[in-house]
């Protein structure tokens, strides 16, 4: 949908700005949180933690008669834990047009571009 309006910039130049409303197509997939049954299974990721199983996790105990918790085996932790710092997973979220992160990043870049142009003019 195109909307146009005439405005006056700071320097007094009359310009016509055309604003196009962007429609984001939200498909049924957006409401399904789980992976499709037909999707290819994610490659088994080999995670090697810097903290071996059984070692004490220092500094986490703050009770008088408590002990630092022990690290479990890498496989004992939930799968999503390793995703938090995985650069591929994070990049995939930014690339996925149905993810909030994608639009957040796109918005950031748009604002930076507009600010760049605005600063250049003044």
């Amino acid at each position: 949908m195109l909307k146009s309006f005439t405005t006056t910039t700071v320097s007094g130049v009359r310009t016509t700005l055309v604003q196009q409303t962007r429609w984001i197509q939200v498909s049924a997939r957006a409401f399904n949180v789980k992976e499709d049954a037909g999707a290819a299974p994610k490659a088994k990721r080999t995670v090697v933690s810097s903290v071996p199983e059984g070692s004490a996790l220092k500094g986490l105990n703050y009770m008088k008669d408590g002990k630092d918790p022990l690290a479990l085996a890498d496989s004992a932790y939930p799968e999503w834990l390793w995703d938090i710092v995985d650069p591929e997973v994070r990049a995939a979220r930014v690339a996925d047009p149905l993810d909030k992160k994608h639009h957040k990043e796109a918005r950031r870049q748009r604002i930076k571009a507009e600010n760049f142009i605005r600063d250049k003019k003044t």
Partner: protein
Amino acid sequence: MSKKAPAAAASLLRLVVPAGKATPSPPIGPALGQRGVKSMDFCKQFNDRTKNVEPGTPLPVIITVKGDRTFTFVTKSPPTSFFLKRAAGIEKGATSIGKEHPFVGKVSLKQVYEIAKIKQSDDGMGHLSLKGICSGVVGSARSMGIEVVP
């Protein structure tokens, strides 16, 4: 029944107090005194409640002072930055962060997981998933200049 006085507004006070060590004048005394609460009372109760905690551990406290100068308080888990500094083995967080600045410490995702489990027990975290809390801890680490590795 006698006429009820209009309910006086309760005021909230948020402080961070070292466990087992309360009543120094600067942080607690004036803050409580302004609201008419005897700081000695609070300190006795606080130290009693935190006697199982390692002395000196900073604990955020939310004190609700009612109109008639009685008070109740809730103790929460230590700040995330406190855990992260201890886990990374550093005294202070980074002065500056970013691409040009090196990290000042390193922390494993397993430690992040355990920190998140501790924070989960707080009242304010009831609506968050453990994954969400972990992401929050990683965010705190990032802003302190602490690298998070698997």
